[in-house]
């Protein structure tokens, strides 16, 4: 059981999907119920991970390794560290909530819808577990197809355009990544005379600095498009705005994190020389800062509620990449934590938009106003989401932004200065959004009769709200999980960082613990 827990986690939604196909499509209620049960089950099988995960170990855990295509050296190789653990739990949660929140919203082609959602879930889980680059690429690509359909079939007016744009953009990035992977694979073959796609094998390869930089950009396009970093973000507003609520929730909650995760897991560790190169770092930092400020400014201008939330993602992910590229412990763990934070608070915002859209069928901000008087519970939950996104102390966004700023300041005070401007703008557009929608008196008579949240809607939002408060008030368990993976990355990119900075290296502690347990 324990050895195969990762396989069980990614196969649960897949098996659920296959079983779902046997339910006749007329039986919509049963399909819904079944999909929700599978979603809940998908979450339940992740729970043992949380208990079994041993945070004193710096290596990958729950490793599964078997040969798949021997003549190409491809392996079925799974394993997780603290970062992957957090992302897997987040994926399970978001996956379940997105299935649950579709109960009333999706009335057409219900069976296909849930089948695609579950298939997507399996692919996303796989991405966070794969330690073999070939396997990773397969999961990475497989995931695109169900998302294409979720946007393309159940989206709003411009859905086909948004779906194909999302698909082609991501595909173009991924094929360049494939070439970079193949080059690494070949270089490894030249040096060791054995074919392997395993991450640790490829990390042993020595690569000259120029090649490293080329390969880095190869990987970069795939991940930068997924994050999305400026100027590769143009698919995002379309995809997020046109997708059904569940699609937006998954896109914001999980898919964007994959780009971040890819940079963290593959780009930097595989090509430390490129990551230590000053011009690479400066370009990435500049792109991140532009994303932060540009995303915020564009959000300020939006008249469409959902589009505003979509552009806010560009800005928030800019923070994450800025933290990551600072390449010091505070920045890296802050960046990854902010990724998790964004995965909690932005789905909340999208759920809020979706809930109103189901009631009023419009996303124009101007159509609303004074909703707080009619819908106090909704206003409260939406307020928490807005505050969490804006980085108000006591909620998760603050913790993440603080850690990122600390990391960025350590690297270069100017970065931090620009990022602070972004935070101020972020507070501005989010609070202004809240004010226009919730406060004042009701100006539009159509809003007089909207009902407040149903118990189901409250229950869907509560776990995310709880997560926001947890990270906001007691982030220590999360930082503990991120500490070692972040330290590993920093040591890989800047060997001897901890010694120079005079900070104790968490990896040494892990080593001591390992030795003690051996004795």
């Amino acid at each position, binding site marked *: 059981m324990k050895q195969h827990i990762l396989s069980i986690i990614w196969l649960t939604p897949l098996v659920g999907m296959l079983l779902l196909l046997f339910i006749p499509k007329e039986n919509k209620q049963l399909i819904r119920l079944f999909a929700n049960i599978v979603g809940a089950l998908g979450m339940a099988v992740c729970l043992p991970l949380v208990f079994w995960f041993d945070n004193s170990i710096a290596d990958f855990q729950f490793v599964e390794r078997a040969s798949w295509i021997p003549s190409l050296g491809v392996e079925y190789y799974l394993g997780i560290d603290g970062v992957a653990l957090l992302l897997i739990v987040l994926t399970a949660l978001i996956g379940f909530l997105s299935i649950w929140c579709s109960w009333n919203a999706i009335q057409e082609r219900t069976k296909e819808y849930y089948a695609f959602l579950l298939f997507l879930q399996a692919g996303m889980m796989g991405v966070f577990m794969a330690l073999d680059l070939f396997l990773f690429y397969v999961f990475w*690509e497989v995931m695109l197809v169900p998302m294409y359909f979720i946007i*393309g079939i159940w989206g709003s007016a411009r859905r086909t355009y948004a779906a194909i744009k999302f698909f082609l953009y991501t595909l173009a990035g991924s094929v360049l990544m494939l070439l970079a992977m193949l080059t690494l694979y070949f270089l490894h073959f030249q040096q060791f005379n054995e074919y392997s796609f395993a991450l640790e094998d490829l990390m042993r390869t020595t690569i000259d600095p120029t090649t490293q930089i080329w390969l880095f950009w190869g990987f970069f396009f795939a991940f930068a498009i997924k994050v999305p970093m400026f100027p590769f973000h143009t698919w995002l507003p379309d995809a997020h705005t046109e997708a059904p609520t569940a699609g937006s929730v998954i896109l914001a909650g999980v898919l964007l994190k994959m780009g971040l995760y890819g940079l963290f897991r593959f780009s930097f560790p595989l090509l430390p020389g490129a990551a230590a190169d000053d011009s690479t770092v400066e370009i990435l930092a500049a792109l991140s800062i532009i994303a932060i400020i540009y995303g915020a400014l564009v959000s300020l201008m939006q008249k469409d509620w959902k589009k505003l939330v979509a552009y806010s993602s560009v800005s928030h992910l800019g923070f994450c990449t800025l933290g990551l590229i600072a390449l010091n412990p505070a920045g890296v763990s802050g960046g990854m934590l902010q990724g998790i934070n964004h995965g909690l608070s932005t789905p909340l915002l999208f759920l809020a938009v979706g809930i109103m859209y189901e009631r009023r069928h419009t996303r124009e901000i101007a159509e609303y106003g004074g909703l707080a008087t009619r819908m106090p519970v909704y206003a409260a939950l939406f307020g928490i989401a807005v505050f969490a996104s804006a980085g108000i102390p006591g909620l998760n966004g603050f913790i993440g932004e603080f850690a990122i700023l600390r990391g960025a300041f350590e690297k270069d005070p100017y970065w931090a200065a620009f990022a602070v401007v972004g935070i101020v703008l972020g507070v501005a557009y989010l609070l202004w959004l809240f004010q226009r929608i919730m406060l004042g008196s009701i100006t539009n008579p159509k809003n007089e009769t909207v009902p407040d949240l149903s118990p189901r809607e409250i229950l869907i939002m509560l776990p995310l709200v709880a997560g926001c408060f947890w990270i906001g008030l007691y982030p220590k368990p999360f930082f503990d999980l991120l500490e070692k993976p972040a330290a590993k990355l920093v040591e890989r990119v800047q060997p001897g960082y901890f010694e120079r900075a005079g900070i104790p290296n968490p990896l040494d502690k892990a080593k001591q613990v390992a030795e003690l347990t051996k004795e």
Partner: protein
Amino acid sequence: MIPQFTATDFFVLKPILLLSLFGCGILILDFLIKDPRMRWWNAMTALLGEIMTGVAIWQHQQDLGGAAIQGLGGAIVVDGFSVFFNWLFLGAASLAILISVTYLEIEGEHRGEYYALMLFAQAGMAAMAQGYELVTLFIGLELMALSFYVLVGFLRDEKRANEAAIKYVLLGAFSSGVLVYGFSILYGISGSTDLRQIAAAVAQREPTDPVMILALVTLSVGLFFKISAVPFHMWAPDAYEGAPTPITAYLSVASKAASFALMLRIFLVPLWSARELWIPALAVVALASMTLGNIAALTQSNMKRLIAYSSISHAGYMLLGLVAANETGLQGIAVYLFVYMFMNFGVLTVVAAMRREGQPAEEVDDLSGLMARHPGYAILMLIFMLSLAGIPPTAGFLGKYYIFLGLIEAGHYLLAVAGALYVAVAAYYYFRIVRAIFLSDAADPPTFHLSRGVKLATVASGVLTLLIFFYPEPILSLAADSVLLALR
């Protein structure tokens, strides 16, 4: 000394002999069948012939102990290369026979000659894959081409079919002429038609020798025609569109594979020493094929024309394997051709099944709303489209994988990047089809004629397209064996 026809000769020739024999047998059998409804016996006989041929190929594979088996004084051989391609031809012909019965019955052209010609074409292809001597190769090529000329125009009452056949005959004859001119130069250089002796003679010459350049140009032009590479691709869309759909599939898969087999034999044996000369030329042609094929396919509304342009771009990808000119690249061509068979057949089988008021329905829009009506076929089509685009988890990805890896190993990074980016372009038009199937509703859907043969062919193609991805080892080792012997 009078050469004796030995048991080895017979063994080596067996697939070709069996195919010819069954082809002739069908011609006689057809004569004996009085009831037109019993014509499917012709197809059954052809399938029986395929099974017997399969046994012969299997025997070839078993007896192959690393070295090539030579027959008829070295004119014809059995090696890993020929075994691989013979399997491929066998698969393509079997699939084509399976889907032909219903199609021909509806068209009212169900005749024995059709199956006989298919087997003759396959015998020609087998000769192309097994031949090690110019005359044998050329006879094989012409046997295949002549059979296809008739098959493309088999629907005699169709204007489009006649036009297609005429175009195909004229351009095909021209290209064969150019190719045989190249052959004659090779003979002139070496005084022999045996590929090994030609290779020895060519190696003595400077690659920049004008005679060599002339030989290279004529041979390349002739072969580019046959594999429908740009700028010699003009016949393909018309021939593909006008031919009966099962023949479109057979032509696009088997004839292309056989032409690639011929091309590989000629470029890797006699012309290998001149590779510095042909690699850049092939690179340009490959790039042009991918560019034109992909861009022209973007705007096609007819499925068969779309597949024709996409097959031009696929030919470009396969040529890139030859540009890489290393083991990985050549293995890539073999794998690519093999997986291409299943995905292309799968798509065209579904197209062949669609009818509206007795007429073939071949537009992309005719697939609209397929998901609502035939979800199983819609999902199979999705698998084929992903495979054609080269997206995992489908076999098409493996073909691209090898080609890209081969290019990287050979240091052709820019070509690899171009090939990779065209994947995204191609995905656009493949996903136009996916969009029609899953995202649109049909106002006036065509009817589907799903005979058992059609069902079997589609499901088998779909299952194999997935299976080869998840368990590729057998195909990869077969392809690896084929490459080793092609490189001597």
